[in-house]
Structures are given as C-alpha cells and as structure tokens.
C-alpha cells in the first residue's frame, strides 16, 4: 500500500491588491500526493501553479483550506513550521541564475542547509556536500566553483543537490527546465527521475510543457485560473482528454513527429486568452473560451466528478451519468471542428 503523504483540501489563496481588488490566485484546489510518485501540475501563466508551490513550502500562508502533510495541518503555519517540516518539503525554482547565491561557492550553498538542519561537524558537512553532488551526477571539484561559471543545467542540478540536503520526502519542481535547452533538459530530467527511484521521493512537477509531462508524471492535474479542470493518470489523460480546455491545450502543442500528430485530439483551434484573475468569470472559469458552453456554465460553478477510477473532470458536460460529451464526440463527423467565434 502506497502511503499518502500530502492531502490538499479546498486550498484557497487570495491576494489583496492595494486598490482593494481581490486576486483569487488559488480558488478551491483538491490534490493528493502519494509516496514516490510524480504529480504533474499544468497550467498557463497566471493559473496559480507557482502560488500552490509557494503555499506548500510555506512561503505563503493559505487563506483557507487544509494541507495535511503526514498527519499535520500545515496550511496556515507559513514560515512558523517546525524545522523538520521545513526540511521535509523542498523546492527547486525555475530560474537557476537567481535561486543560487552568486557570492557563495557551490560548496557553501550546499553546506548551509546541512548546518541548519543537521548540526554536524564541518568535516562531516563537507563530506556530505560532496556526496550530494555525487547524487546529482556532478564532480566533486564543483565545490569550489561559483554559480556564474556553471551552465544552466549544472546550476539546476546544484539547486537539486541543495534541496536534497535536508532529506526531503516531497520535492516541488517549479518549472525546473523551462529555461534550458532540450538537450540539457533531457540530462537534468533523466537525473531527477533516477534520483526519485533511488531515494523514493515524491515530486510535484510544475510545468507548462505537456510533452515533458507525458514522460515524467504518473498523474496529471490541469489548472485554469486557480481551479482544477481535470485530473487523471497520465496515459489516460493523453488518450482520453475530457475537459474542453484540456482538449484545446493538447491540440495546441507543436509536436516534432508525425506519430505524435496522430495522438492529438481533433484539431480544436484555440481562441481567446486567459482572463485576469481579478475578474474571474461567473460560473465556470473557462466559459469565455469554451466551444461547448451552455447557459448553465455562465451561472453555476461546476464541481469535480469522477468519471472513471482516478479520472476527475470539473465540467457541466459531465453532470449526469450519461456523459453527453463522450457521446457527442463519438457522433461528430471527422474533420476540423471550427471555433464558434473569431
């Protein structure tokens, strides 16, 4: 039995702007993360992916909702968490250029968390730091280098080593490779996947790159304007996307082979842009861009429905048990489905 290590229930994080407006960055998100698995979190910019990550590591306190981590509710503790809780959840940031201190050598960056969390002798710290570098596949001479002399991929691996210093069980990867080239990305990702197996880590993998997600995640969750649209095991998610937004997203990905082209759902031309999180549309947040919208979508917010084991969709089309959407898709003539507007 795989143990559930993190349970997020109805998480909300609102920000109050100076002009009195309320930004609902995360608005009622439910997620679970199990030991040793990778949960992929996908969304456009402004959908609240990073806000969730920052609430989890304690950089923000949640406005409402629960985050149960190994039995403790840490939603509103923020930075007042115990040292152990802080060490258990670690993060790798998107930009390796600014997340490493440019004035510290790699060795010093790696030894700081060791000093705070483990209280071991200096020689032990150095030994442990070398071991951490070895884990991420970097040579020991990196200890005396400064971040500016390293390439982007190497810096990101150093960030990874630093996060591992506290022996975490959950690692949050906030777009770890979106600043890197594909050949470097492949190196970093394959190293991270190996580490996960060796250390039995759970990953919350945040990215906007769905092709990458297909290859790293066990389960995928799609976020749109601070709300979850769909959540499913990876293979099922890519074979049977149900939410209209997921379908639009998948058909927008530029792919490099003809084989992948066939995997995409019927070409759904993307329309419109993500609305501002200050003015989230009434009802379903996606109703401004949805090609299947119905009158109810403008009024009532849909709820999460489990359509098959582990596959959740938040859409009015799945309100009754007959799954109108699937039926309609099966009957629709082949060929391009044109958008209603533009």
């Amino acid at each position, binding site marked *: 039995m795989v143990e559930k290590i993190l349970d997020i229930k109805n998480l909300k994080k609102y920000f109050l702007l100076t002009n009195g407006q309320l930004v609902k960055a995360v608005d009622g998100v439910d997620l679970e993360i199990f030991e040793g698995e990778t949960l992929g979190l996908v969304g*456009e*910019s402004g959908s609240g992916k990073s806000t969730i990550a920052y609430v989890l590591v304690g950089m923000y306190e949640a406005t409402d909702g629960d985050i149960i981590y190994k039995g403790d509710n840490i939603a509103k503790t923020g930075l007042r968490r115990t040292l152990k809780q802080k060490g258990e959840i670690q993060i790798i940031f998107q930009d390796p250029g600014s997340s490493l201190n440019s004035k510290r050598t790699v060795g010093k960056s790696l030894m700081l968390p060791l000093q705070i969390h483990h209280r071991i002798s200096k020689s032990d710290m150095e030994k442990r730091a070398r071991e951490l570098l070895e884990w991420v596949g970097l040579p020991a001479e990196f200890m005396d280098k400064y971040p500016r002399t390293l*390439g982007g991929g190497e810096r990101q691996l150093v960030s990874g080593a630093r996060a591992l210093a506290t022996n975490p069980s959950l690692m949050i990867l906030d777009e770890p490779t979106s600043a890197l*080239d*594909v*050949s*470097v*990305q*492949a*190196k*970093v*990702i*394959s190293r991270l*996947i190996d580490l996960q197996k060796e250390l039995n880590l759970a990953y919350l993998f945040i990215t*906007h*790159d*769905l*092709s*990458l997600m*297909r*290859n*790293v995640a066990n389960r995928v969750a799609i976020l749109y304007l601070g709300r979850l649209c769909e959540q499913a095991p*990876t*293979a099922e998610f*890519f074979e049977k996307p149900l939410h209209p937004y997921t379908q*639009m*997203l998948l*058909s*927008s*990905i*530029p*792919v*490099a*082979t*003809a*084989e*992948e082209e066939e*995997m*995409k759902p019927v070409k759904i*031309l*993307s*329309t419109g*842009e*993500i609305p501002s999180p200050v003015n989230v549309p009434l009802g379903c947040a996606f109703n401004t861009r949805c090609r299947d919208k119905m009158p109810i979508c403008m009024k009532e917010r849909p709820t999460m429905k489990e359509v098959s084991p582990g596959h959740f969709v938040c859409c009015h089309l799945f309100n009754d048990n007959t799954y109108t959407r699937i039926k309609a898709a099966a009957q629709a003539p082949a060929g391009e489905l044109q958008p209603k507007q*533009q």
Partner: protein
Amino acid sequence: MDNTQKDIILEVRDLSVSFDVYGSVSHVLDGISFKVKKRERVGLVGESGCGKTTTLKAVLNVLPKNAIVNRGEVLFEGLNVFKMSNAKLATMRRTGAGMIFQDPSSALNPVFNIEKQFITALKYAKPKNTPAQELHEIAIDALNSVMLPDQERIMKSFPLQLSGGMKQRACIAMTIAAGRQLILADEPGTSLDVTIQDQILRLINQLMLDKQLSVVMVSHSLGVIRESTDYVNIMYAGTIVESGKTDDVFHNSKHPYTLALMSCVPKLTGKGISKGIPGRMPDYMIPPQGCRFSPRCPYAQEICHTQKPPHLEISPGHWVSCYFAGEVT
C-alpha cells in the same frame, strides 16, 4: 537563371561572422548559406548560442559594433546588404524586411501608446506627406488583419494594458503595415502560453498566404518549426549541419546532431526521455578545427576532428554536412 534568381528574396552565402571580445576573437558564424524564396517559410532551428539571432541581425545589417564579417554576403532582392548605401539600407529596413521579436513587452516602448509608436513607424515607411488620417487608417487595417478586435481602443492603449498575445499581434501588425515582403520572426511564440503561441503561429501562416510574404522563422522548438515551415536549416555552433524540406529533415534525419536533438525532445507518445547529448557547446574562442560537432559526436572519426565536412546533397534538396551522412542512423 533569371527566373529563379527573381524568385529568391533573400540569399545568405557563406556568411562568417566573428566578434571582437576585449581583444580576443570569438568565431561565431562559420559559413552559413541558405535561400528564401518568395512565399516560402524557412526555419532556422538550434539551441541557444548557436547563432540564430546573429544570422537574423546580419540579414538586417544591424550587427553590434564589435562584429566582424569575415566573408560571405547577404543578398536581399539581389543586393548585398553589407555594401548598400545608408539610404538604401534604411529603405530596406523600413519597407523590405522586418523583424518580430521574442518578447513583445520589450519590443514596444512602454511610455508611448500603440498609436504613437505605430504612426511614427508608418511615417517612415510610407511616402512623405501622407496625410495623418490615411496613416491612421492603414494602422487600423493592419490591426484588423491580425485579428485584434476594437482597434480604436487598442490604438489608445499603452503596452502594459495589453496582454502578451495582444502585444505580439500589435508588433506583427506594425511589421506588415509597412508592406514588407520578408518577415524575420525571432521566436515569436516562445514567451507566450502554448494556446496563445498556437494562435500567433496560425496568424503568421495566414498572413503569409494572404499577403504573399516570405518568413524566416527562428526557434529552438523543433515542434514549432515542423508545424510552421516549408524548408528548415538545423544549426549547431554557428554552422548549418542539415537542411532540406521540413518533412525530409524531420522524418529522415541524417546528421548525428539532428538525430541526437530529436531524441532529446520529450514526445507526447511517452516513450521516456533520452540522457541528453554529452558534453557542451564548443567555446567560440577556440572552435574545433574540423566539424564543430565532432567533440560530442558518437560517430566521429579522425577526419572529423581535422577537416571541415563538405555540404553533401544526399537526396534532391536535402543537404547534410557530415562525412558519414547516410551511414548514421
């Protein structure tokens, strides 16, 4: 000969550019050659630092001051841009070839509204003494053709009031309004979300068909290039390693670098991720003597390290710079 020559809007021949960096010389571009025909979409694809943007800058002759063009020429409609008079060059930049930049937020001036920037740009592109009213109408038309609704409001907006996708559309409108024939698109969708990127790429394709434009599309994303070009050049460390029709290059790749790059791209089919390409991009100060990919190439032989490989045509229109092209799979 005349006919084919007339059909070519841009030709880059054996272009080599180096940079003077505090006294030492960095040899970036090494013998870049490609052609862009009218109504053709040509792609340049490669990793960061491989010289894609330098190539585009050379086309517009806007290389930084420390750049040295060692040899080669860039012919725009048959004229060498490095030998043009300043007046000719200005005309070419205003009405001949235009660039769409990666980041629309920094391409627009934040302290002027769209109208001010648009009309200023148009003033130089259109004949002198064109009435202001006419310029305004041209601008509105252009905004309409990039599918921006409510053009009058957009004209009065400042860049920070528009979203990323709208800013990029406005930039494209400015580029095409001057009646330019050649669009140099430098990663036009990279800083945007995937659904917005899809819209922008479709828009560029549509404009190319409607207005009979030629497009040079630069990107690091193989997917973008495959879906929006007819002809592609794969670049590595300042050289073109493989070029040909997009379908040929993507489905029948021959160069070891192209093959390695393809295997690094995460696939939707979910067959896992390769281990990446070993090693790093060479140092441009001391580039490898032979093939620039040879230090990282798993198939490299003695000759690859010492002599530059020839550009071989392995099938009609499909060129590969490798001694062992065809033997590698």
